[in-house]
């Protein structure tokens, strides 16, 4: 059924369709609509779930971890400072192998205070062991949450679905909302292989000596690597039910391209339009959206960049003292198979600056010619900086 809704509403609807059993969250702009919507949905009796209001994001995730360990399908949502406040529990969730799904609304980190879109919040949590998916549009939000539960519960790993602040959270789109019955077929109830059970007592998170520690971490690393293919399989199954694709890497006009723009999130929409405009001028350019950052979707990335001679990465984030975090990821990915490729990294659109076609085309020109307004700083070029 077609419905008009914002990305936040789509996230709440997805949680409902996934029949989550525990929701524990703390409100924060721009995520608040998600938890308010879910509170309404549960309050109206449309979803049989335990809604736990908590005093902090740390407790929100902690209670989701507990709920998941007890065998419940748990959901939380946060943003920015809320996400980084969860930091300790992010590591715990992945280490405990609980299939919690979380929506993070990508918002800038203060100070200075800023409510708008920026990817530093989630990318700075890159190494916590969570699967990270970045949405392109509101339909992607709804669908990815459903796929995420399927993937998380098979792999026993937590998944973070990232949603650009305001571009997605507060923008209304027409969505195709799947039928509950079809979702139930795609996503059966969670059957934990092991859980907190007084009749079968175990110690979870026990102290572990050096003898087994390495093996446990190695196993988790392998399981996380395998998730790229697991996502592909689950997304293919989703496509079978709902006829919509949600790949780990989305390519646009890359087949014959020797130049490729790379980005994550909603900014890639403008990148595609920029590709169209530059193709008019005869440039053999394509665009690539990394929807998955962890695990890094190396196989699909290799194929998409096989012919590229020049790669342009636009980061809505920065690792201070280094460069854009996506640029680092792309560099590492290219190093695997490319000897002769140039990479130009731009920091653009942080703190809510729009990534429009008009903003992106000049960056490509600067990458080609070396001339432009973006200011060089170490390995990066910054746009929108005061003279």
């Amino acid at each position, binding site marked *: 059924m077609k419905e008009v809704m914002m990305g936040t509403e789509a996230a709440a609807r997805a949680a409902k369709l996934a029949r989550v059993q525990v929701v524990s969250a703390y409100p924060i702009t721009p995520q608040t609509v998600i938890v308010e919507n879910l509170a309404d949905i549960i309050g109206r009796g449309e979803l049989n779930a335990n809604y736990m209001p908590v005093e902090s994001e740390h407790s929100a995730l902690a209670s989701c971890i507990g709920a998941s360990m007890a065998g419940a399908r748990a959901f939380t949502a946060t943003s920015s400072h809320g996400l980084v406040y969860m930091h300790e529990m992010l590591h715990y969730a992945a280490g405990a*192998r609980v299939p919690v799904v979380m929506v993070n609304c990508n918002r800038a980190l203060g100070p200075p205070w800023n409510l708008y879109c920026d990817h530093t919040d989630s990318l700075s949590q890159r190494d916590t062991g969570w699967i990270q998916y970045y949405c392109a549009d509101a339909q992607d939000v709804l669908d990815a949450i459903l796929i995420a539960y399927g993937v998380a519960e098979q792999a026993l790993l937590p998944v973070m679905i990232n949603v650009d602040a305001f571009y997605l959270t507060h923008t209304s789109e027409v969505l195709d909302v799947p039928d509950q019955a079809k979702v139930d077929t795609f996503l059966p109830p969670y059957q934990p292989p092991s859980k907190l059970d007084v009749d079968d007592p*175990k110690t979870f998170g026990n102290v572990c000596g050096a003898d087994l520690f390495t093996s446990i971490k190695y*196993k988790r690393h392998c399981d996380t690597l395998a998730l790229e293919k697991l996502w592909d399989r689950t997304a293919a199954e989703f496509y079978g039910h709902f006829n919509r694709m949600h790949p780990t890497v989305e390519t646009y006009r890359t087949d014959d391209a020797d130049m490729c723009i790379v980005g994550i999130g909603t900014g890639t929409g403008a990148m595609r339009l920029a590709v169209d405009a530059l193709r008019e001028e005869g440039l053999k350019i394509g665009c690539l959206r990394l929807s998955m950052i962890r695990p890094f979707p190396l196989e699909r990335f290799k194929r998409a960049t096989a012919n590229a001679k020049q790669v342009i990465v636009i980061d809505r984030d920065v690792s201070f003292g280094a460069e854009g975090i996506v640029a680092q990821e792309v560099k590492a990915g290219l190093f695997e198979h490319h000897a002769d490729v140039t990479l130009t990294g731009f920091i653009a659109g942080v703190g809510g600056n729009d990534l429009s076609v008009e903003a992106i085309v000049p960056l490509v020109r600067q990458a080609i010619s070396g001339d432009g307004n973006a200011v060089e700083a170490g390995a990066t070029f910054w746009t929108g900086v005061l003279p």
Partner: protein
Amino acid sequence: MQPKKVIQRLSDLPTMPSTIGTMVWNETGDWRYLTPLIRTKLAPCSQACPAGIPIPGYLSALKKGDVQRGLTLLLSHNPLPGLTGRLCYHPCQAKCVRRKMDRAVSVRDIERFLADVGTEAEIEKSETSDKRVVVIGSGPLGLSCAFHLGCRGCQVVVLDPSNQAGGALLEVPSEKVEPQVLANEINRLILLADIRLETGAVIDFEAPGEPLSKADLIILDPTGLPENFAVPAGAAAFNPSEDETVTGDIIFVTLPKSLKPFRAPMIAHYIAVGRLTAEKALDRLVACSEEQGSTQSNPDLPRQAVNAEDIKIERFSASDLSTQPEAKQAGTWDRERASQEAERCLSCGTCNLCLQCVSFCPDASIGLDEQETAVVVDLDHCKGCGICAYECPRGVITMEETIP
């Protein structure tokens, strides 16, 4: 301990890091800075009671349906509950924390119920000693004093020159206390404490016969003797509230101004002074025979007070009875009504095994003891987080700095 399973291959590892072993070996108790101390504390009602009766203690017994135990606990501090249950002004009720929720627990009516229902009460007595005490006068002070001395093993004789026991109590109008009630109360008291009571006794200090001549100590009761009673020349005045030690072989107890003349509603004060006299008299008697050990009659009496603010009334729900106005009905309550009323007691400062602490302890370091009569902390593992103290609705658990 033999491991139940040996992990040799990667595939043996569980996906979720978990073991069938426990963490008992990890004695985290030495991380602790603050220690939860579980101690019965003096409730606001008991603090207000002149006789210091451990009210939540005997109400807890009643809640469990153990009327006999409730009466025993009550009698151990108050040997005349049938009289206090009719006469006392009950300052305990004025301080009842339950007033913050609805209305005070009617301690008066419960006391009266216990007194009237229980004729087969028992009191644990210390061993018999060879100390002989004569109490002259059988007013509330003298009876209380005699009772406590009797319970501690002294051979006590109460002599009353009057033909009827009761002293000042005999002047209480019969519509307040029926003569039969007074007689029953005194009978129970002397039976329990194994006291000999002689009324119409001839008291001659010049030519004392038995038991006066053989007494180690003679105590004169101001609430049991007429104003014009001739105090013997060798008697020393003794004010138990002020004087630390008993000197001499004959003492006549003097009362503070606030307790003179005798007023029936103040009966608990006289009972209290009688008990204090007994305690201090025992100190002297025991010192004479150079006995060792504590002379405090109740070493387990809770001394630390719990404040009304320590009681988390938001954790309690109002009972069905709360909506009823305070009963002013005449007569003695029946068992059901008294038990219902006892249920309303919040047990301030007294553990009633609600086990909130056990539920909330994140380290499973607090639980019932082997007899399942008390909650104990596993100090080998308790990290001193304080959640138990926070969760205890009754102020029984407090976190205190302890030096190992």
